């Protein structure tokens, strides 16, 4: 009896270790994608990120970005400039932008991802986590004159948009129209006996719709690959009695005869190879949303 219990315990322990190693392997692979994404849009170059690592603490994944700046002041100045650029141009903070993409690529609930930025000599500069909103904790204060940094070289995705809607007053009304129209639109996409389109709305809340649509074909790219898209719609009441919808779009693709559904390890990010097509699709969705809400 004792032996059986011991054997059972060892089996459970070894299977748990195996599962953990498999998970770690996936994160390591996705971390490379995240690094490529940072390199592509040149955030890496601006923040001089020379090392990206990940670790797991409990059920939270921690991504650590290490900057190569010689002084914290320089890093802080660059971060502030980038943040201003994002807040004014995209209505999203730099921390939010980095965190959202990280959570998408790692296929994690945002609450389960923490982002830490380290400055020179391993000093922690930023701690970005998510509760109901992104919490960006600045851990250092700046001294001296800020460094002026040119941000002209940033290549930001155009798949993020703001749609102001005058004459719409109720967040709930807008979100319910969008919710039903999106379900209807993606629910009628062609399927075959090898695959069928799946729409996951589990991450949606009152004023935030998160639609994860998998097993689409020829929706964004025309190469016949499976596509997995995530549409994030933030619906916010504006002071001038209007509603603003913020649209965020992320896309992945993979080959295959059978659809891997939402199993992320099979997918590659569209950002680098199909960035233009993703931007076009974002324009298309913007027009669709305006059309749905104008009725």
């Amino acid at each position: 009896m004792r032996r059986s219990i011991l054997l059972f315990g060892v089996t459970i322990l070894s299977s748990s270790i195996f599962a953990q190693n498999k998970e770690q392997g996936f994160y390591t692979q996705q971390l490379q994608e995240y690094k490529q994404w940072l390199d592509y849009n040149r955030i890496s170059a601006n923040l001089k990120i020379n090392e990206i690592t990940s670790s797991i603490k409990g059920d939270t994944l921690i991504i650590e970005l290490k900057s190569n700046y010689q002084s914290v002041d320089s890093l802080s100045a660059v971060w502030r400039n980038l943040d201003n650029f994002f807040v004014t141009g995209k209505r999203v903070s730099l921390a939010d932008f980095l965190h959202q993409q990280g959570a998408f690529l790692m296929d994690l609930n945002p609450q389960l991802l923490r982002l830490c930025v380290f400055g020179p000599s391993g000093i922690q500069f930023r701690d970005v986590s998510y509760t109901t909103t992104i919490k960006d904790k600045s851990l250092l204060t700046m001294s001296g004159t800020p460094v002026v940094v040119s941000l002209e070289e940033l290549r930001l995705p155009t798949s993020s948009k703001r749609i102001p809607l005058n004459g719409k007053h109720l967040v709930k009304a807008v979100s319910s129209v969008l919710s039903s129209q999106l379900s209807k639109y993606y629910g009628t996409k062609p399927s075959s006996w090898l695959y069928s389109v799946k729409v996951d709305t589990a991450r949606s809340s009152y004023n935030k719709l998160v639609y994860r649509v998998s097993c689409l074909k020829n929706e964004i790219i025309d190469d016949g690959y499976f596509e997995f898209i995530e549409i994030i719609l933030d619906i916010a009441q504006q002071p001038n009695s209007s509603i603003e919808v913020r649209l965020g779009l992320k896309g992945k693709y993979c080959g295959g005869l059978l659809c891997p559904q939402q199993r992320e390890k099979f997918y590659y990010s569209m950002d680098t190879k199909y960035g233009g097509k993703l931007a076009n699709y974002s324009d298309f969705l913007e027009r669709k949303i305006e059309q749905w809400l104008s009725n």
Partner: protein
Amino acid sequence: MPDNQLQQRISIQIITGYGSLILLTILLYAFSGIIDDELISILTTLSAISALYVAPLFQFFSEGLKRVEKTVINAEISNTFSVKLIKLIIPAHFVIVGGLIFIKSLNILSFKEMNLFLGFIETTFGAYMGYIITSLFKLKEK
């Protein structure tokens, strides 16, 4: 052409196996079973397999053309266990590689996992296959 029946059979197996793997990969690519980056990577791996199997074979053929005297393998050994094993292991190797590529295209294995298993198969069998083929076709280093 090889003199010996065993050599002839193994030669056909290698050429058919290698050709089938290339054909399977291209077919899967045509049906979007694999993406272009994966196609390049798989073809690179297959070229490594070709270096292992097809290159010694062509070396043997070229030696035949030069009329180098070859020792004919004794027909009696064709029924031994080791010969049966050789007859089986070469096609089995191609079937495993083809199977892995096909399973990847069904999205049961990810591309990274497929590469991992391919690496394992090549590392495990590669050296032994090299010995078998070199000795079978009498390709001794000069």
